[in-house]
């Protein structure tokens, strides 16, 4: 089972690196750190159907860290929501937005980008599902730096007020934000305690790239009653690209020709690889 997931994650990562290279720049670090979380969600967890992406009673997914949009598109492409070649393509001169966009990709449930806003939308979705007695679950992925935003904690308060046990948020805790180490720019710790203090059940994942650990966290999350759950997944910013891993400067940027070649080698891609 994990082998398939690992292959899907690798394929998504390859297409991401290829596409951002072709497009010239992008949020490499933030996209690369979330790939396993998204791969698990789209391949195993979310009750969604690429053939019917607007199905009313599907589970909902909110990429609150909207700048991970290309990571999401690449995982969704591997799952059949869009052709792989679309990631790097221009349509009428317009590329896919770097921030997750529902107008361009059927199956993206909400467009995001301005940080801190997605979790509130997920709360509204989950409260809707509760009130309407639907079995819909709502999943969100947040950035760690995004948790600097006050609105995240407003949303956290409201989710526990309404006992939203159909809401599972994961934090892609890669430890780096634009200006540096997350815990230097604006310390988050004790992070799990904060979520617990806001009435959430917190589950910590030591390796947010390990599918066994991710799966176990989500399975445990679904057993929790009367509380929303946060999965705090430790990840590596820039995961998979040797010179990007744990480098703040690779939040976003452009690769030189040599760096592109190195990235291709890191991901086992032949020269001339194409989606």
């Amino acid at each position, binding site marked *: 089972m994990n082998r398939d997931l690992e292959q899907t994650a690798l394929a998504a990562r390859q297409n991401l690196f290829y596409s951002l290279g072709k497009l010239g720049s992008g949020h490499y670090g933030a996209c690369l750190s979330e790939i396993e979380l998204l791969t698990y969600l789209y391949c195993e967890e979310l009750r969604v159907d690429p053939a019917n992406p607007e199905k*009313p009673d599907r589970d*909902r997914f909110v990429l609150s860290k909207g700048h991970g949009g290309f990571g999401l598109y690449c995982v969704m492409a591997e799952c059949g929501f869009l052709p792989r070649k679309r990631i790097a393509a221009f349509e009428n001169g317009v590329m896919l937005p770097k921030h997750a966009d*529902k107008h361009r990709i059927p199956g993206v*449930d*909400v*467009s*995001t*980008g*301005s940080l*801190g*806003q*997605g*979790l*509130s*939308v*997920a*709360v*509204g*979705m*989950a*409260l*809707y*599902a509760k*009130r309407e007695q639907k079995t819909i679950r709502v999943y969100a992925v947040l950035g760690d730096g995004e948790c600097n935003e*006050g*609105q995240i904690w*407003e*949303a956290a*308060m*409201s989710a526990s007020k*309404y006992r939203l046990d159909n809401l599972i948020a994961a934090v892609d805790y890669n430890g780096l934000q634009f200006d540096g180490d997350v815990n230097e720019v604006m310390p988050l710790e004790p992070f799990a305690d904060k979520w617990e203090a806001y009435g959430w059940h917190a589950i910590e994942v030591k390796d947010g790239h390990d599918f066994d650990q991710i799966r176990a966290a989500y399975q445990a999350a679904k057993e929790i009653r009367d509380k929303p759950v946060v999965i705090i997944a430790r990840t590596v910013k820039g995961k998979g690209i040797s010179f990007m891993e744990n480098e703040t400067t690779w939040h976003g940027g452009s690769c030189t020709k040599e760096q592109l070649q190195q990235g291709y080698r890191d991901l086992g891609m032949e020269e001339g690889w194409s989606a």
Partner: protein
Amino acid sequence: MSGTKDVKKVYGNTLQELMQENKDIVVVDIDLMRIAGSDDIKKIFPDCHVNAGIAEQNAVGIAAGFASMGKCAFVSTFCGFLGTRASDQCLDTVCYNELDVKLLGTYAGVSSGINGGTHISIADLAAFRAMPGMKIADISDGTEMALAIRAAVATDGPVYIRVPKGPLPDLFEEDYTFQWGKGTVLTLAPTSAAGKKAAIITSGITTASGKEAARMLQEEGIAVTHVHMASVKPIDEDLLHQIAGTHDVLITVDNHSVIGGLGAAVCESIAAKTPKPVIRLGVEDVFCEGMTEQELMARHGIDAQGICKAVKEAV
């Protein structure tokens, strides 16, 4: 027509009527239920009501979440707290996603009066006008408010309804209609009138001032046109071009900063096709001070006397 209406009752009663028929309406409050008038909604429709606490940004986001699931979500709080405090949420989450969220701002502009400068919304229209897809109604009386709420439900997508503190004097007859993109000519100066012709353009609480000003000017033998422009966005371009084409000067009256409000919308509308001098009355790029609504209207020249003075200077 000599009565007044409590805007709280209008909001609560209109929503109740709508929610009896339409099960898809939800109401999100921000710890101001008794000011908005939605306290009964919580009692009667508990499963369609959310109180987000004092957290405007989250409240707008929750409403967006409901709307993304197919609901029509109303959110209410003071105008400034929606238009500026939660502006980014209204823009990026609500408008960008084209969601059916209806924002109802209370205590519009100087009607917040003695609450002082931090509570007097002078920039909300400017913010909302710049948001793609946002419709804006700046309402003047209780009849119009009820119609605007119904018109908000009847149209898809984001709406901002700007409501003064009230109670509001009745200005319109029962057969009055509110339509997006349509202004209403309340008084039309005769074409035979001598001298320069002025048209007053008002919305919200300044429409009562405009009506009174038109009456006072008439008594002095000065005929003016008075247009009520509740639909600030989309604005009635056809009517504005017609008025601009048949008048020498337009006088707009904003219960808002002169930057970005009704006057700015009028200027932007007529500038290219039918340019005419426009005198923009309103809050002149300053913060308001803590005074009563009437005192603030006088200070900023948007009461009937201020409008009369501006008209006389212009003609």
